[in-house]
């Protein structure tokens, strides 16, 4: 992590004497930034106040200079300790008092050194490998008896997200969700990011994958063609969906309907409600979606595009699924783990028209990944944006309109 930080404590009559103000001013003047934590103001004139200040600097030297400058004013560096660990008592069980993660970048102190926690994600534990001094976030279900799991809060620090340097919608909007604002500039910024990431992805650069998690409303609402185009143009590298999106996409290819509605005419066709079942049955008989595409049964659409473009797909099942299609993971913990495995390397996440998959994906994402959530129901983007990331943008709009506009911004002719 390029950010260097240290916590200091300041106590005494630091308010009226302006000692606190002076210390904060000095940190600022020396190019550092700070967060004031645990500020306790004395209730009476006699009672001292105290403040904990987390100081951040861009280099170790700058941090040392700041500490040196503020220590004469009473700022004392908090005594740092290594993180504490305890053995997991059984498979799938964390030790008592385990540290529960946030989705913010996190470090643990091992043998005096601050080490990044890999694959950070909210609501997990931290597994430490003392032999090689590494740490990674681990879900409860994956822990094995005897794993060394971080307990308590000592020796763990969370790095608040820095405002992104890019001056686009992700940099300016602080978890903004709006149904009222014009969407076009947001979509333009998302498109610019995608164009940039696609280039980087072609060059094999890190954190350049674009993830899309979507629901079947994409098909129902008429966003299938636009999404197919995005996939075929190489703008999507990971797809998270359920049985329905895949089933209706292939139903559209086989029957021209989505849940029985003729997509071109917009009305129900006789016995149309059977189409998705017949589609699922057909694919099941073929054995896999990939085989259905390579054999030419499924010719065009989202799933066909994914197979042809080598997009990594995780289909997570739900309790109401028909079939399901081959490849749908019906054990939700296994599905979660398959999704988690594809998160490393993602540089942008588009969560579209699915409460279930959007929230599930949002929970797997570290706060550092720019995220766009699109839904006609404002509660979904709000829920995602409330995760406290500078980089979550919510758009209250129809999935098809979003995808169509996005594809147009990326050069699709209409």
């Amino acid at each position, binding site marked *: 992590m390029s950010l260097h930080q240290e916590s200091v404590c300041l106590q*005494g009559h630091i308010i009226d004497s302006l000692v606190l103000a002076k210390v904060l001013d000095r940190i600022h003047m020396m190019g550092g930034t700070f967060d004031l934590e645990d500020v306790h103001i004395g209730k009476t004139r006699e009672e001292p106040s105290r403040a904990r200040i987390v100081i951040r600097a861009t280099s170790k030297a700058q941090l040392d200079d700041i500490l040196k400058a503020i220590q*004469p004013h009473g700022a004392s560096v908090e005594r740092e300790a290594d993180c504490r660990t305890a053995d997991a008592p059984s498979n799938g069980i964390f030790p008592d008092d385990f540290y529960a993660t946030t989705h913010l970048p996190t470090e643990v102190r091992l043998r005096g050194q601050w080490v990044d926690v890999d694959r950070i994600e909210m609501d997990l534990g931290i597994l430490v490998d003392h032999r090689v001094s590494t740490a990674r976030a681990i879900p409860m279900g994956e822990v094995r008896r005897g794993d060394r799991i971080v307990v308590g809060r000592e020796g763990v620090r969370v790095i608040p997200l820095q405002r992104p340097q890019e001056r686009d919608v992700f940099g300016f909007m602080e978890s903004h969700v709006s149904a009222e604002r014009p969407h076009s500039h947001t979509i333009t910024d998302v498109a610019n990011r995608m164009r940039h990431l696609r280039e980087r992805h072609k060059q094999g650069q890190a954190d350049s994958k674009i993830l899309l998690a979507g629901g079947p409303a994409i098909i129902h609402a008429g966003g299938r063609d636009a999404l197919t185009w995005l996939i075929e143009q190489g703008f999507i590298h990971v797809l998270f969906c359920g049985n329905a999106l895949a089933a209706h996409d292939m139903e559209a290819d086989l029957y021209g309907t989505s849940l029985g509605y003729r997509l071109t005419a917009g009305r129900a066709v006789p016995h149309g409600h059977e189409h998705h079942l017949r589609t699922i049955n057909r694919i099941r008989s073929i054995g896999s979606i990939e085989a259905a595409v390579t054999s030419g049964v499924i010719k065009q659409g989202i799933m066909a595009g994914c197979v042809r473009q080598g997009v990594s797909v995780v289909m997570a099942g739900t309790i109401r699924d028909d079939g399901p299609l081959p490849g749908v993971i019906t054990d939700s913990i296994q599905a979660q783990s398959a999704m988690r495995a594809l998160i490393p390397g993602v540089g942008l996440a588009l969560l579209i028209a699915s409460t279930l998959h959007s929230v599930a994906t949002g929970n797997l994402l570290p706060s550092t990944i720019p995220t766009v959530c699109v839904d006609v129901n404002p509660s979904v983007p709000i829920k995602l944006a409330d995760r406290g990331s500078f980089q979550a943008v919510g758009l209250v709009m129809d999935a098809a309109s979003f995808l169509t506009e996005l594809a147009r911004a990326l050069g699709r002719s209409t």
Partner: protein
Amino acid sequence: MSRLLVCPPDCFGIEYEINPWMLLTNRVDHGRAVRQWHELMRVLEKDVGVVLERMTPIPGLPDLVFTANAGIVVGRTAVVSRFRYPERRPEEAHFENWFRRQGYDVLTVEKGLYFEGAGDLLGFSEYWFGGYPQRSDIRVFPVLSERFHREIIPLELIDSRFYHLDTCLCPLSGGELLYFPAAFDRYGQTAIADRVPDRLRLAVPEDEALKFACNAVCVGKHVVLPEGCPTTQAWLRRRGYETHPVQLDEFMKSGGSAKCLTLALD
């Protein structure tokens, strides 16, 4: 009746340099210093009416005469100083012994912290000011504040000529304050101005500040201060104080004046 601790200047001289005033080449006229000290004592005893407690001078400890740096006394408790400069550290044991013999409860500050007594901690009955970082460490103030249930407002001393708080700030018995603003940074100046209203504050002019006008002893409505500070004296008189200028220039060679030569005991 106020009591002050003093130490006769038998062994006073300049034997080292630990502040900008001290120059080994600037020799003390010992006879003159002794006469000035005795005159100060006469004024304090006869004109002001205080009781003086005299310590025994110790050869080799020329600054023992500056008893303001012995520590602070609050009721029957004495907090003994820990000097920043090794040259003055041998004084600590003598001050401590004196306090113990007088029956004070003696406290010392945490190891590794410096605290130079009433030189850096002075104030009004409800709250005190604490000077740092030249001699005393700001970290001692929260400890003393908690021990004595007094608010202590730390003030950074930014001019090395005003190395102790009592060289540039003097609270008076009527709530007034003499001070030399330029000895403090803007935070300190603001903190002082927030506490003491304009009409009660005298910003001592620089020429008088450099004569240590602020290093004055205030007992009731009497103020004993170094000679040559007419503006300060006039202001004090207007505020109803009786002023007692005393010539103390031999002690200024060491960076001390009236206040430095005394420690309030009660």
